[in-house]
């Protein structure tokens, strides 16, 4: 009996050791939503797709400005004639002898199909807009972010659904059908295949185009056309693309399968729990050093930490507040001060929706509430901007792991200048001065009352709200700020209804170009700009939109940098918001894990670079 136990124990131990030597395990908290490159718009899905699929080009190590070839053997540039027509034509030499995981050979047709599929797929709330903006012709001088806009325009209808019989995907009539097909043909003509080259003709210059194609941008990942069609994805034809447009996730045939040309194949995906990648030995870049890569979802930090300590995980996600628990662990390496392409801001809502709004008290400037246009007042905004304790917040709440931004452009990106504009800093004297100036002293005399809402579970945001509350009261006891936490559902409800007077949100780069920050933050139709009230929208139309558009009409980096700097200065002048932080990331791993490198645009880790 004793012998049997010993043999079994040895078997278990050897099994575990052999398995772990060629396997890298990452433990994190995100849930992978999909493996379909055209659907994914979250970091967790992006990380999985990264391992499975290739793009035309890739970033050079940690650099966000230099590229290396990937499926394209060249990096298009004007000097060698692979970027022509003032940045409107790109030529890619497609690598030969690249295999998809099922053994099919990759061709330029696959690349074209992949891009076109992302554009026709266009699920609501998805990443398609990034590829659509450069590839679709503008309408009235504005970018077009969906093929449906062209279909609507060509058919002369108001809504995309007007093209179809009610509740179906059957075109209403011949004209509707023709408009749909013509819209697709407009896109299709942008691509030209000459031998082994893929030539993309953009209808307009689009400076960040290469970023939108680079590895990490999963929407531009290259899939196997033949395999995709066999599995029920779009058949590549113009005459029925709308059937495959905007599906629900359960109707997306590629959501849980893959056939990329990346360094790993999908071994198994247990949804919401674990995904296992297996080395693809035929990878064009040579096989990976490890045999398996595992991303495991472990929501409890202590469990992750113990797994790291015991060697059952090689790298784990550590929230900022727990960093002190891992910094001195033996056998563990902690890498800090990694600048993330994220900007967090506390936004001012220039026109608060007062209807049934519990957050603005009386809705009047009577000391018991705030008027709906409270933050349309520049003195109020400036007062709040000077009220916030930027340094203390970063030091105490973010453990010093953040920078104070001076606008929406993160440090390290084109257009960022640490000195222009200056950053706001806490200055209670100035805050007092602006509060006294606002409403000709009426605000100072009567005081105000409002509620700041944050989404529950976010400790940093809660603390930032508490800081505003405390300093407002210190300046004037008549300034009453309440704080309320809401679940994401309620927060979203109030946010979309325009009821939140102040709200804290952030933006993570889709690609490392300042346009991706300036447009959503400052643009009158930007993701955030459009939610800041009609007064802001009117102001932004007059002051920001023109500059943002101009920044995309030129490919000259210097001119573009100057424009983004100017946008930031304008935002500073009007005290656009309270720029709280640009976080600095960190990476925690076991000492025996080799090859990890940082790239701010990479979602998660790159298993291909790792070894043990």
């Amino acid at each position, binding site marked *: 009996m004793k012998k049997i136990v010993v043999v*079994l124990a040895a*078997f*278990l131990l050897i*099994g*575990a050791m*052999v*398995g*772990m030597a060629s*396997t890298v*395990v990452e433990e994190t908290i995100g*849930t*992978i*939503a*999909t493996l379909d490159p055209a659907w994914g*718009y*979250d970091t967790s899905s992006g990380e999985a797709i990264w391992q499975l699929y290739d793009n035309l080009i890739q970033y050079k190590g940690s650099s966000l400005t230099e590229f290396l070839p990937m499926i394209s053997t060249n990096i298009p540039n004007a000097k060698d004639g692979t970027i022509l027509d003032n940045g409107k034509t790109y030529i890619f030499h497609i690598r030969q002898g690249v295999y998809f995981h099922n053994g099919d050979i990759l061709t330029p047709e696959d690349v074209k199909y992949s891009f076109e599929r992302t554009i026709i797929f266009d699920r*609501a*709330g*998805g990443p398609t*807009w990034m590829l659509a903006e450069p590839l679709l012709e503008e309408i009235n001088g504005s970018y077009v*972010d*969906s093929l449906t806009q062209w279909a609507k325009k060509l058919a002369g209808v108001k809504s995309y659904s007007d093209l179809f019989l009610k509740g179906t995907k059957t075109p209403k009539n011949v004209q509707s059908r023709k408009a749909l097909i013509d819209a697709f043909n407009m896109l299709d003509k942008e691509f030209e295949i000459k031998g082994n080259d893929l030539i993309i003709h953009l209808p307009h210059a689009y400076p960040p185009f290469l970023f939108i194609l680079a590895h990490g941008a999963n929407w531009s990942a290259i899939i196997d056309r033949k395999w995709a069609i066999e599995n029920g994805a779009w058949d590549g034809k113009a005459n029925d693309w709308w059937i495959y447009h*905007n599906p*629900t*996730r*359960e109707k997306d045939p590629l959501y*849980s399968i893959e056939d990329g040309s990346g360094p790993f194949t999908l071994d*198994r995906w*247990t*949804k*919401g*729990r*674990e995904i*296992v990648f297996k080395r693809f030995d035929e990878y064009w870049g040579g096989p990976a050093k490890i045999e*398996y890569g595992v991303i495991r979802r*472990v*929501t*409890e930090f*202590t*469990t992750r930490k*113990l*797994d790291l*300590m*015991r060697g*059952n995980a090689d790298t784990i996600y550590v929230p900022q507040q727990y960093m002190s628990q891992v910094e001195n662990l033996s056998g563990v390496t902690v890498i800090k001060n990694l600048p993330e392409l994220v900007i967090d801001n506390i936004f001012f809502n220039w026109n608060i929706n007062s209807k049934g709004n519990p957050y603005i008290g009386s809705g009047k400037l009577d000391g018991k509430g705030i008027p709906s246009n409270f933050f349309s007042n520049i003195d109020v905004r400036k007062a709040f901007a000077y009220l916030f304790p930027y340094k203390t917040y970063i030091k105490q709440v973010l453990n010093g792991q953040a920078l104070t931004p001076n606008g929406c452009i993160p440090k390290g990106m084109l257009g960022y200048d640490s000195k222009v504009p200056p950053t706001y800093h806490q200055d209670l004297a100035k805050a007092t001065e602006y509060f006294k100036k606002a409403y000709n002293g009426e605000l100072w005399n009567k005081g105000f009352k409002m509620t700041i809402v944050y989404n529950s579970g976010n400790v940093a945001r809660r603390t930032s709200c508490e800081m505003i509350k405390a300093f407002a009261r210190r300046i004037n006891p008549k300034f009453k700020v309440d704080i309320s936490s809401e679940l*994401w*559902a*309620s927060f*979203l*409800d109030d*946010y*979309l*209804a325009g009821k939140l007077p102040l709200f804290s949100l952030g*933006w993570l780069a*889709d690609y490392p170009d300042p346009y991706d920050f300036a447009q*959503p933050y400052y643009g009158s*139709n*930007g*993701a*955030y700009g459009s939610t800041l009230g009609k007064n802001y929208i009117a102001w932004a139309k007059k002051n920001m939109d023109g500059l943002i558009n101009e920044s995309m009409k030129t490919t000259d980096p210097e001119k573009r940098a100057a424009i983004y700097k100017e946008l930031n200065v304008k935002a500073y002048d009007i005290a656009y918001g309270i720029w709280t932080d640009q976080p600095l990331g960190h990476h925690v791993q076991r000492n025996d894990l080799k090859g990890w490198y940082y790239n701010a645009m990479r979602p998660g880790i790159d298993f291909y670079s790792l070894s043990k």
Partner: protein
Amino acid sequence: MASFIIRRILLLPVTLLGLTFLIFFFTSFLSPYQLLSAYVQDPRQLQGGNVEKLIDKYGLRENFMIRYGKWLGQISHGNLGWSLSLNEPVSVVIEQRFPATLELTIYAIIPVIFVGIWLGVVASVHHNGVIDQILRVFALLGYSIPAFVLGLLILFIFYGVLGWLPPGRLDQWAQMIFFSKNFHHYTGLATIDALLNGNIPIFLDALKHLISPILTLSYLSWAGLLRITRSSMLESLGQDYIRTARAKGLSEKMIVNKHARRNALIPATTVAGLMFIGMLGGVIITETIFNYPGIGSFAAQAATQFDYAGILGVALVYGLVTIIGNLIVDISYAMIDPRVRLG
């Protein structure tokens, strides 16, 4: 008894219908924007006209009765809907996760019942003695210690310090085999399937992963069962028939085991049955701490992410388990106590 069982089984669909109707009814209080939160995790997804597109796409403005009708239509085709939190059909999620919870519950309920009842009997026999006092403190601790504290403590000692009992359901190497094509999944219970596949190392590995959650669940449940058994034993021991048995000269062992314990088992059975049902519905905290992929951790994830299909699926499972479990408890109650007649 047969008519009782049939009546209760016939009530099953009505109860489940009522339960799911209530859940849908509560969602009617939510605005389309609140319902939208299930589909939107990041404001970047709301660019352009995406808010309205998403609301239209998923029918979030529809009256809850229409949505309920559609859901019932789906159910009638065996489709429990799509889990937004785990990104796969709810039926698949339940099929994968329920066996894990069932396995944990089955293994946990054995020590819970036997040790819990035994401790209760021991405490009552030593009424107000040292052993009774120690056991009462033991029970009190079990009542007062939160599951997450105990779970983390066990995890820290047996995994962090000793390295014996890892979290999860299987080690990585075992998972590679468990999920391989050659491994047949007859029941979904890792230990049973390992034995049926003749793979002893996987059986041992699965067992190793079960010990910590079982310990946590057991200690938390022992307290309740100990107290119930103790008090009903004390009540039984004070009855006239026990005095008569003593007067007859029966040994104390015979009195306790044969006469008092059987009667004391009646309330303990009810409580144990309810505990079993409760565990089958998912032990959220224990599953989360030990990263155990059961129905409880799914329920928690579905609830926090407004995954209505997932919530409804879990509610159906829990409803089913509760009704059937209660039925079994009622039947066993009648079997233990001949005075009880089900009619």
